[in-house]
Every structure is written in structure tokens, then in C-alpha cells.
């Protein structure tokens, strides 16, 4: 019983993951900026290879609404979207998490209009930061595939019962053909138990979901949601450990690359972190004590792991692929800066925003970012952040 290594587009591999997970319901709105994910799932269902209900709807808002209903009756539920589509889902995203509905969604991360852009960045994700979903960023095709499988297990875990987004960079991951290990169905069956939603909608046992909450209860509900999402980290860590035990690939909320004893650390999320590794190698070759941190788990935010990972560093350079207009820079940078603020000893945090709307950052570009970050840290510049690679 071994995994098969195939060359496949990452989007298509996600469709295979949903088939291996035996999803029951997929609802999606298949139009630009969609990907092959739902196109392939529609084909799998039409060909009889996947016994699922595929519900094409008239908008992304309806896609997520249909997913709510499906998850509420206890169906294993999946959808995918990207960019503008994620924005159109926005208000329904909160309902999925607040009602504890374990929907799994792959998000092809894309820029937002205007000007019209179908290219990748993290603007769409960051607008959903506070929707209460578990959010995982994948750096390559294998991580994406593996984490879609993990997402079902995490979402449906009785301790969690929360929706999960698996983020993959638009184009840089969604359209990339690369080698991916695909497990046997029996291996996945062993790893991923049946969905046992504890209180499904059932005409024979009526319950109320998403009821009205006056001021005397709303705060308590939100506190419970906060406690629940924060506590979900334990289940996520356990899932990743058991996934590793099953498949030999282990994941963690924060991953370090040549970060030991590094005076300067660069932190990146998503697929650009792999490109950044090459820059670290080049700079290490030049004798610079630099390392890389990949942030994989965005929500719940891994405070302890981040603090541990940057301990000992003098400078922490953070690249955001989204911009908080008129604010303190990129959302990742401002969160990490805030997470470190009360530490007795903390690195200087230097923020960059770049890679917007599909703009590539090459290994040479990351080298420039690191060198510029070191320069800023030495001059004590008071800037909140800089935008990288802007033609002026």
C-alpha cells in the first residue's frame, strides 16, 4: 500500500483529495475567478466516480449558503472560491463559524478589484481574517493536498466543529503542475473517520440553529466562539501529528528554515516562502546569519510558536502580500508586531508589502528585501512599512 507520485496541477489534485475524502456535498459557482478544483469535482460527480451532490448555484453567496445547509444536516461539505468570489461570500462566512458548521473550503488567493486583477496575492484572505474560520496556508502542492485532507478531519473533530479554509496562492499554486504523492483510498479511510456531526438538522428531532441573540447572551456566545477557535489548535496539532504518522509528512503551525542562531529572520506565508528559501541559501553562502520562518497556521494564530521561533533574533522582516490601506502596513506584520510587543526581548520588526496582484518576487528580490530590512533596522527608521518593488 503505497502512495502514487504523479505530475498534476495542484487544483486538480485538490479535486482528487475531495474524492478520497468522500465528500457528500459540493456547492460552487463555477465562473472566473474559479479554478479547475470545482470543474474537476463536477466531472468526478458526473462520471459517477464520486458519489456526491454537486450543487451549482447562482453566486458565491449562495454557494456558501448551500454549504451551510449541507453541513448542518451532517454532510461532509466542500467548496472552493477565489478573490472576488470570497468577498461575495463574506457575510455567510461568519455564519458558518458561528453556527459551528464544519465546511471545508479551498481558497485560491487572489487580488481584489479595482483595477481588475485575477492574479495572486493575499488581499482576499485578509478581508476574511476575522470571520472565525480556521485558516491554513500551503506553500506547495503537496502541502495543499495534504491539508485539504487534514481540513476535513480538523473541521469535523468533535472538539472543533469549525469551518476551515485551506489557502493556496492563485496561479503560483493553483496553475502549477508538480509532483504530488496521492495516497490509496484505504490509507485515507484509515486517517479520516466518518463525519459524525453531533446535532444534525433532522425533521424527527427538531432543533434551532442560528437563533436570535439579544444583548444578554451575544457576548457570551462570542466568548465561547473565541475559546473554541483558540482551543482548536490542540486538535490541529494532533491531526498534523497523526497525518505525519500515517503518511510521513509532518506539519506545524510555524516552520523554520535555517533559522537556528539566525540574527535576521524573514517571515513569509504561502508559496512565496519556498522561493524565499533560495534567497536564504544565497545569503548564508555569503556568510550572513539569516533564516526563514514560514507561517502556516494563520487562525488560530500560533502565538507561542511565533514567539519561540523569533527568540534570539535581532531583526524580523515580514513580507505581506496584502495592504491595510492607511494602516500600519500588512496584516501579518502588524499582528506579529503586536504579538511580540509585551516580550521583554524582541527583535526589531520591519514590514514589507509586495507580491501584490501577481507580481513575482524572485530569490534576488527576497535578497533585496532582507538587505533593505537590515539597513532599516540599523538606521532606526521610524517607517511603519515599505512597499517592495514599486516603480516610482
Amino acid at each position, binding site marked *: 500500500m503505497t502512495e502514487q507520485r504523479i*505530475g498534476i496541477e495542484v487544483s486538480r489534485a485538490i479535486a482528487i483529495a475531495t474524492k478520497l475524502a468522500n465528500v457528500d456535498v459540493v456547492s460552487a459557482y463555477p465562473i472566473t475567478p474559479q479554478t479547475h478544483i470545482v470543474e474537476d469535482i463536477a466531472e468526478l460527480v458526473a462520471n459517477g466516480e464520486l458519489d456526491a451532490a454537486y450543487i451549482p448555484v447562482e453566486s458565491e453567496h449562495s454557494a456558501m449558503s448551500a454549504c451551510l445547509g449541507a453541513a448542518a444536516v451532517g454532510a461532509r461539505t466542500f467548496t472552493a472560491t477565489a478573490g472576488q468570489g470570497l468577498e461575495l461570500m463574506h457575510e455567510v462566512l461568519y455564519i458558518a463559524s458561528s453556527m459551528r458548521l464544519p465546511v471545508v473550503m479551498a481558497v485560491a488567493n487572489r487580488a481584489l478589484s479595482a483595477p481588475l486583477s485575477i492574479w495572486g496575492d493575499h488581499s482576499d484572505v485578509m478581508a476574511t481574517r476575522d470571520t472565525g474560520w480556521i485558516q491554513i496556508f500551503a506553500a506547495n502542492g503537496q502541502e495543499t493536498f495534504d491539508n485539504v485532507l487534514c481540513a476535513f478531519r480538523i473541521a469535523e473533530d468533535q472538539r472543533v466543529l469549525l469551518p476551515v479554509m485551506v489557502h493556496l496562492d492563485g*496561479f503560483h*499554486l493553483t*496553475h*502549477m503542475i508538480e*509532483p504530488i504523492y496521492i495516497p490509496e483510498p484505504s490509507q485515507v479511510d484509515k486517517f479520516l473517520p466518518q463525519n459524525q456531526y453531533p446535532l444534525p438538522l433532522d425533521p424527527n428531532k427538531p432543533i434551532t440553529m442560528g437563533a436570535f441573540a439579544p444583548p444578554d447572551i451575544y457576548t457570551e456566545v462570542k466568548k465561547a466562539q473565541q475559546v473554541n477557535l483558540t482551543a482548536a489548535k490542540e486538535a490541529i496539532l494532533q491531526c498534523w501529528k497523526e497525518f505525519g504518522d500515517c503518511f510521513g509528512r509532518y506539519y506545524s503551525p510555524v516552520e523554520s528554515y535555517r533559522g537556528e542562531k539566525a540574527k535576521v529572520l524573514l517571515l513569509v506565508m504561502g508559496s512565496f516562502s*519556498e*522561493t524565499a528559501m533560495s534567497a536564504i541559501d544565497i545569503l548564508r553562502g555569503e556568510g550572513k546569519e539569516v533564516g526563514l520562518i514560514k507561517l502556516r497556521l494563520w487562525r488560530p494564530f500560533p502565538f507561542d510558536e511565533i514567539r519561540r521561533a523569533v527568540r534570539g533574533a535581532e531583526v524580523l522582516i515580514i513580507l505581506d502580500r496584502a495592504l491595510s490601506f492607511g494602516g500600519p502596513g500588512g496584516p501579518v506584520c502588524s499582528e506579529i508586531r503586536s504579538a511580540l510587543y509585551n516580550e521583554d526581548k524582541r527583535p526589531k520588526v520591519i514590514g514589507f508589502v509586495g507580491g501584490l496582484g501577481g507580481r513575482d518576487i524572485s530569490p534576488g528580490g527576497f535578497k533585496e528585501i532582507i538587505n533593505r530590512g537590515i539597513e532599516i533596522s540599523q538606521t532606526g527608521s521610524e517607517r511603519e512599512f515599505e512597499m517592495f518593488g514599486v516603480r516610482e
Partner: protein
Amino acid sequence: MVNTAGLIEIRWHGRGGQGAVTSAELVAQAAINEGRYAQAFPAFGAERRGAPVVAFVRIRTDEPIRVRAEVAEPDVVVVLDPGLLRIVDVTSGLKANGMVVINTKKQPEQIRQEFSLNWSLATVDATKIARELLGVPIVNTSMIGALLRATGVVKLESLFQPLKQRFGRLAERNISAMKRAHEETLIRSKGN
């Protein structure tokens, strides 16, 4: 021949509908089936039939490929449509010891002179092969044959499975086109 030990970067230039993106994917799948690391992707954009398109392949034997940026300094450039030589800078960033593989009915010497191409050259009349064997001027599989002849980046046999999977009942004809282009490709090293 290109050195196949380290990282090999190939850039494909075609027009929407000619199959440049498919070519890139098939070559990457062949390399992956050989147990190597490879990636293929299009120059990201909104594709339109007839418009110039670009696709990329990276192949590496010793370790996984981490870079996902577009290929800026290719080892090999494959040109599916000779008309592109006049409107696209196809050799942009091409390494000095690189190779240009062109679909043209002209001889390599003629193309070299006409476009001042100071790299190793490989030419094949892929349009003629595709018309004769496939009945349509879709040259992608023929140009894979030319690429393999010119560079040996993957084995010809390694393409059979990806082509069968992609083209189904049309696979045999595409394999024939690939093989014939492989035979008919003319190669001139740099300076010749």
C-alpha cells in the same frame, strides 16, 4: 545537449490554441514519471486564442524545485510559431550556452542569419508534420519531439504515458508526430 544534472529551465512561446501550455505540462509530467522533480506553468494571464502565450518548465534531478517565479533566464527556448520571432523577444534572458528550438520550414542557417540568433539552434517543420499526421496545425506534440532531440531533457518513451492520458484515442497520432519531429529536427551548435 543541455547539461541534465542540475536545474534546467525551458520557456515556451506559442499562440493561444497551439498547445504551448500543454507541451510544458506533458514534458514536466514525463520528467516526474522518470522520478525527477519538475514543474510546469503558464505565464499567468487571461488566455485568448491566437494571442502570444508563454509557458515554463523547470526540471531538476537532485532536489525539489522551490522557485515559483517565472523563468527569466532559460536554458532552452521553444518557439511554436515562427511569426513570433518578429513580435516577441523570444530569446530574452536566454543563457549564452542556451538553445533555441523553432518550428520553421527554413534551414537553421537561414533563421540564424535572418534573426541574428547567436545560440545553438534546432529547427523542424512542425506545422507540416502536424498537418500531415494530425490533420490540424497544432504543433505542440511535434515540438516536444524537436525539444527532446535537441536537448535530451527527458526520454522520448517517458512522454508516451502522459500523451496517452492527455489525448486518449488521438494519442497514437500525436506520438507519431512527436517521433517524426524527433527524427527530422536539424541541429546547429552555436557558431555553426
